[in-house]
């Protein structure tokens, strides 16, 4: 885990990015970036404006922010069950993220600090699971979960199948391999068992990797769509992504102001997680860069 001291910034003109030099020719970059940011943000700005307008303004070309955001939100929070969906998604995403992290840490511990028969086979089994996305297995998975396990319309159905994490196992494994084994040897000689070594030494040394993974796993769990769509039929247990689809469908007339308010609220949790763990996210992925 070497620390990169020499980072690179692309050149700004005739002379290099660092040191004295002409600071000219940067305005085209600014123009291009501002243009890109505007284009990328247009759908969101439009959604923000319309989410604050009263329903009479929403259908007009009026582009001024209004004051109806709270009204729009409260109209769907209870009646269209948005509050319920948000709660469900939060529970599911937190359970999946926590479960995946714990299971991946334990699996990586086994792969790095033990030698045992069939280790290669076990590793291949974890690796190959990457080739089998939920979408492809959905027909058989549906039969298994609803008919054999009788889990239809339960949180277990949208949490348990996703608890194993190949990506997490690999990332932790890479990270553990970068930690000097002398540390583990010393711990063992001091009479520390593997589980205590994991909780007392490895986890405190792995916060960046844990944070980076948590971001990815939270967003992944929060964004689940096709599986809850088929396995959950009761609104009481439905997640917010499928809830959005229901908001659009309500009656013949879509209340677009309310739908936009709902879409914005749905964006917030991943944004919050992303903001909180931004540091770890960037650092956690810079690790395996050094060979």
């Amino acid at each position, binding site marked *: 885990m070497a620390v990169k001291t020499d980072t*690179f*910034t*692309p*050149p*700004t003109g005739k002379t290099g990015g*660092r040191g004295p030099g002409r600071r000219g020719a940067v305005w085209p970059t*600014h123009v291009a*970036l501002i243009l890109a*940011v505007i284009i990328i*943000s*247009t*759908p969101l700005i*439009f*959604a923000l404006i319309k989410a604050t307008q009263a329903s009479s303004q929403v*259908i007009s070309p009026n*582009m001024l922010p209004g004051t109806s955001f709270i009204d729009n939100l409260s109209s769907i929070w209870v009646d269209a069950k948005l509050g319920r969906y948000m709660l469900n998604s939060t529970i599911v995403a937190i359970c999946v993220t926590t479960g995946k992290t714990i299971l991946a840490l334990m*699996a990586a511990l*086994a792969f*790095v*600090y*033990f*030698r045992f028969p069939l*280790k290669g086979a*076990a590793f291949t*089994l*974890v690796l190959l699971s990457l*080739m089998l996305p939920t*979408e*492809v*297995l*959905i*027909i*058989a998975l549906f039969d*298994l979960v609803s008919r054999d396990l009788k889990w239809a319309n339960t949180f277990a159905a949208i949490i348990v*199948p*996703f*608890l*194993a994490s190949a990506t997490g*196992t690999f990332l932790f*494994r890479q990270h553990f391999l970068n930690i000097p*084994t002398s540390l583990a040897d010393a711990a063992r000689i001091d009479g520390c*068992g*593997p589980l205590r070594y994991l909780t007392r030494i490895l986890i405190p040394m792995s916060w960046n990797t844990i944070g980076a993974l948590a971001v990815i796993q939270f967003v992944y769990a929060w964004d689940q*769509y*096709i599986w809850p*769509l*088929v396995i959950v039929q009761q609104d009481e247990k439905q997640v917010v*992504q499928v809830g*959005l*689809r229901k908001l659009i469908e309500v009656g013949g007339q879509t209340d*677009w102001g309310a*739908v*936009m308010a709902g*879409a914005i609220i749905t*964006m917030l949790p991943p944004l919050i997680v*992303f903001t909180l763990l931004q540091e770890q996210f960037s650092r956690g*992925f*810079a690790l*395996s860069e*050094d060979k």
Partner: protein
Amino acid sequence: MLKPAQTTANTEANAVFRGTAMPWLFLLPSLLILAVFIYLPALQTLRLAAFKANLILGTERFVGLQNVTELLLSPAYRQVALQTLIFMVLTVSLGLLFSLGLAWLASRPIRGSKYYRLLLIYPYALSPAIAGTLWLFMFNPEIGVVNQLLGSLFSIKPRWLDDPILAFGLVVVAAIWKGLAYNIVFYLASIQNLPGDVMEAAEIDGATPAQVFWRVAFPLLTPITFFLVFTNIISALFDSFALTDILTRGGPYFHNAGITTFLVYQLYQDGFVNFKSGVAAAQAALMLVLVAFITFMQFKVGEKRVHYGG
């Protein structure tokens, strides 16, 4: 960087801790979940694909490869496969081109570059379903901002979701827009990790900024580009479901099928709307082969990857 792991479980780490039952105990939860919820359904999918179900009688009849051959001969399914391929090629190539360009510009040491980076990567928090919802409203023929603008400027109001070409283009652009942030995150990290000495040497030797980019930086960025090509292919195959389900419902109809009906959408339609589980399982089996092939290629390319310096 997140890289595909090596295909071999290396035993370079000494066996620090002893015990044979202990490691299996640590692996048990992961292996159990994988066995029950991934490997078992995968085998089940292959089995289902070989049967034809009769819903009225509730019976199953073994038909071997008949489901698969019927699919491969069906004009509708062929069209869906071709549409998926075109969608994939367009979104992956254009998406990576734009994101690399933007990441490069945002890495330059200019005032406010930090804010530019933030504004370029926040859409990562948007789900495909939210993306579909926003675009559905933006391109609503009557009250969407796009048509209100076009209407007042040129007095035209295209029916975005009813015209096959427009709808297909719309889905492509929406998917590219959705994927930009993810790609920019990885490109930004890679650009910041480029070896500074190599870059400076190029500049001292009098390379123009364009030459520095194409001749020096771009080759150094091939590993991450390969990685992103594969993640974007997978995302074009699977993440497009929520987007098209909300935005176009797989339509509008064109020749033999809805023009924005891609492989997973067709699978969902047959499995959970038309209840043809045998046909749907056959599609799933075909997709298993496809994804296996893509993953295999990823490791093949990954092994051959050139590593420069560092």
